[in-house]
């Protein structure tokens, strides 16, 4: 790997620009994503910028259980993001459709429609967990551009109190104390 490639990988890891898309979310994960940019968490220290246009973004952040109405929009926006790109599924909904499972208005989970790189579980996930997920996705982005290998999706660990108990994941604040970081290859 020559110097230019090294610099490119380093830059990709240090400058993840996000595009946020709501796939029928209850707005819980959305406000947590915004909270990760606010003064308390300040994701801009990692070079994160929330972009207005999907053309500018490197990482697509998708929340919500992917309703029938949202599917085509999500596919369009995924195609509009210029490569190399990564996708983060924020919250339990895009990963499993959560408590809305088997609803006739849903087309989820997200991985049925577009390749997902990082799952950030939680209902909603804490801002620290989202920032951790973004950092992981930026790493994947840099690796992908360097080696051109397909990389298996990563499930991030639950951070902090994690699940508010609304979802079916069984990870309510009391039950999840023994939660360990895990990387699951699907």
């Amino acid at each position, binding site marked *: 790997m020559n110097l230019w490639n090294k610099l490119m990988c380093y830059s990709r890891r240090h*400058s993840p620009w996000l595009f946020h898309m709501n796939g029928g979310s209850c707005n819980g994960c959305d406000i947590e994503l915004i909270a990760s940019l606010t003064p308390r968490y300040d994701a801009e220290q990692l*070079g994160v910028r929330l972009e*207005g246009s999907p053309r500018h973004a490197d990482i697509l952040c998708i929340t919500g259980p992917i309703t029938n109405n949202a599917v085509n929009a999500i596919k369009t926006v995924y195609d509009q993001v210029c490569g190399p790109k990564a996708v983060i599924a924020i919250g339990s909904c895009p990963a499993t459709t959560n408590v809305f499972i088997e609803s006739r208005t849903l087309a989820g989970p997200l991985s049925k429609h577009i390749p997902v790189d990082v799952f950030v579980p939680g209902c909603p996930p804490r801002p620290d967990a989202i920032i951790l997920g973004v950092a992981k996705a930026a790493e994947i982005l840099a690796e992908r551009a360097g080696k051109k290998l397909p990389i298996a999706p990563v499930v991030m660990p639950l951070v902090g109190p994690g699940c508010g108990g609304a979802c079916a994941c069984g990870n309510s604040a009391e039950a999840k104390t023994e939660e360990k970081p895990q990387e699951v290859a699907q």
Partner: protein
Amino acid sequence: MNLITALARLLIFPGLLFAVPAAWFFLWVERKAVARMQGRIGPPFMQPFFDFIKLLGKSTPPRTGIGGLLMRAWPFIAVSAAAGAVGLLPVLPASGGFQGDLILLLALLELPSMCIIAAGFSSGSIFGEIGSAREAVLSVSYNIVFLLAIVSIAASQHTFSLAALAHQSASPLRWLGVIAILVCLPAKLHLNPFSLPNAEQEIYSGPMTEYAGPELAMWELSHGLEWVAATGLVATLAAPVFTLWWVAALVFVALCFAIVLLLSAVAAATARLQIDTTVRFYWQCTMIFAVLAVASALFMRLRA
């Protein structure tokens, strides 16, 4: 010898070799200052450089036909115009060679915003068109004040030559003009009270909506160079006269830095105005002072 001096000015200081790192530095100072004022830590020092490199390595959507060609050309025209404007600044005493004047500098400073308008319309995106329309309205509003300020400075000092202006001591009327230019700078640089054209999250990214990869990197660079050129213009007009060239260069850089801090503080402390409020601000409130400045400059000139 003249050719070498001119080339050195265009390529080294205050030209490209100084201007490109300075552009990244000013972009960083802007983001950092806004972050500090919001109680955040803000981006690391090399952030705009990393952003630039990363954007160079991204792919661009396929563009076909004349429209696509034009879309690719606009950012490069904008970057060359802004770099040319920076190269014209008379920071170092020029010993012959090509010397531009205020009018050429103004034209080169205006070209990037023309390119932004054209880029938004040629992108075919509805958000790009809204952004371009806003940029056009904004440019008609602040440019009247901007040009009147320049005219009043030139009339009060009897010259349009930049080098001559830089080596004359400032008159009170010149300070009035400098303040009028400072009032126009947030609109020229799309900063917060007047960040209408690229209004983030409101109309996606305005004229930049369809741009990606290296083209977007060029837009970022041209924005940074506009920062250097615009603050450099104010610093040139406001700086006291020094005989030692390195003192002049240091004072120039320090003044530019102070102006960037001031503009970032204003940007962090204000919210975006509506387009009609912005136009009213420039046409009703600021215009009166600009007209007064020009009138008194001409009057003093007639009396002298």
